[in-house]
């Protein structure tokens, strides 16, 4: 399948510091690509390079076969972009603002805008300056989707949205994928990317340290689990269970880390009286740790 987004040796230096180093990336049509990484890893730099807001120090970026640095306006025509820190003219209402941007795109179907606003429960008649952070973010999402672009580039799109709206947003992304559109979104929240992405790339210190399917990534993820037993923890059994690491006892409680699936652990616990089980979501840092542990 043809790559919709392709970068080769894409590098961005800011003065002395490195934003992104030698990135080779291919995102195929109809894919949701989740770009994960802690703050400062280079996610925003990558996304801003892809829409031509930044110019590469080396290498190149192509969207739909168009060199971004060479013909940014043609790329802009085909892309919906949501910046990481979306800001809009505070004196305009949502409706005025979206009409202005739509006009710059040669006109946008008003029905599409209305439908998007309705799905996100966004009141377009209010001044943007009077909106809450979450509602402003919704304006940003609407402007990215409203012209039905074949490519969507979204930087931390769910920032400021309440859980209900986050779910609605993920539905929007799934709908776009169903229409064979290509979406690249960045996040520092694994569960969000997990919920919607087909492929995940992890950036760290300006380098893409891994690109993998969500399934493979989850299989490698570390999960911290606290177990409380009705008796002494069966430490020998736990230690012998595949995938269990960093095991330690604390009275009737056992703390451990599981790599990948927890199925073996749950099976091993069946004969015992487990009074409480707390599982901490694998956070990014833990996935990185897993990744580096494997490398090491």
């Amino acid at each position, binding site marked *: 399948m043809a790559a919709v987004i392709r970068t080769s040796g894409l590098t961005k230096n800011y003065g002395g510091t490195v934003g992104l180093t030698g990135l080779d990336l291919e995102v195929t049509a109809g894919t949701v690509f989740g770009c994960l990484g802690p703050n400062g890893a280079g996610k*925003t730099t990558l996304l*801003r390079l892809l*829409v*031509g*807001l*930044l*110019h590469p120090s080396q290498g190149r970026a192509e969207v739909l076969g168009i060199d971004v640095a060479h013909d*940014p*306006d*043609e790329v*802009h*025509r085909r*892309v919906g*972009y949501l*910046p990481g*820190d*979306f*800001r*809009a*003219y505070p*004196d305009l209402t949502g409706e005025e603002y979206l009409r*202005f*941007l739509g*006009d*710059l*795109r*040669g006109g946008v179907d008003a029905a599409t805008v209305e439908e998007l606003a309705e799905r996100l429960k966004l009141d377009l008649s209010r001044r943007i300056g009077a909106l809450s952070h979450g509602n402003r973010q919704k304006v*940003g999402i609407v*402007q990215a989707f409203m012209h039905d672009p074949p490519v969507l580039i979204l930087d931390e799109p769910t920032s400021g949205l309440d859980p209900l709206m986050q779910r609605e947003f993920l539905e929007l992304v799934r709908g776009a994928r169903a229409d064979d559109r290509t979406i690249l979104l960045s996040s520092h929240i694994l569960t969000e990317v997990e919920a919607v992405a087909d492929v995940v790339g992890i950036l760290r210190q300006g380098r893409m340290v891994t690109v993998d399917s969500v399934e493979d990534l989850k299989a490698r993820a570390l999960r911290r689990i606290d177990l409380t037993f009705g008796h002494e923890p069966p430490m020998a059994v736990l230690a012998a269970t595949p995938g269990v690491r960093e095991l330690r006892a604390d009275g009737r409680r056992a703390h451990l880390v599981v790599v990948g699936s927890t199925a073996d652990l749950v099976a091993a616990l069946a004969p015992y009286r487990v009074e409480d089980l707390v599982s901490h979501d694998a956070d990014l840092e833990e996935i990185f740790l897993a990744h580096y542990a494997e490398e090491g």
Partner: protein
Amino acid sequence: MSVHVYRKTLRDQRRAVVGWGAAVALLVLLMAALWPSVRDIFDADLLAAYPEPFQRLFDLEAMATGAGFLNAELFSIILPGMFIAYGVGRGARLIAGEEQDGVLEVVVVTPLSRTRLLLEKATGLATGIVGLDAVLLVVTVVGSIVIDMAIPIGHAAVGAVAMVLIGVQHGWLALAVGAATGRRTLAVAAASAVAVAGYALHVIGALVEAVAPWQPLSPFTQAIDAGPVSGTVPVGFAWLAITALMVVAAAIPLFTRRDLVTA
């Protein structure tokens, strides 16, 4: 051709033009109201009391006429200063200000090219200044009629054009520096420094003979040396227009090739 950014630039100036227009109108009418009493006290003896270079600089001899009075009192520093301040403040905001506020990012990621964005904003700013200038022209003409200052409309128009040119030139400079750097403070500082330097050259050129040959380089000299409320359209006007256009043209490649700053 649709000019949505131009229209937005105009829309954004509505209130400012009204506010600044009111200030300009008040100032001109106030000065015009003073004119009859000045005319009555201004005689040859008072004139002779001033040193000759000052007479030249402030064109004191001409104070005996309505046009000369307005030139000396308003068109030589206060009005150019106001038009420059308006142009620079707005010009710096249009690109650098919006960029630093973070609102430009999404606008740039539309099919509208950065060149077009800059040109539409430049044209919008110039139109706003012309709007402010229209207020000045109307009030000058009306004031002249009411107070009997005997200023021909054509002469008032030349004075008004001088204010547009000096305002647009400095405003476009601020816009261009802002577009080239993305820094609003720098845009204001650079354009203000040019304005102060230009005024200093204009004044020192009138007082110090050694500097006099350089005086025509000053935008102030180019704009107001002939009056500016007068029957002659000076060559300086062309220089003001040409340098203003050159500054914007120079900013285009710098703006299109640079990274946009984040808010």
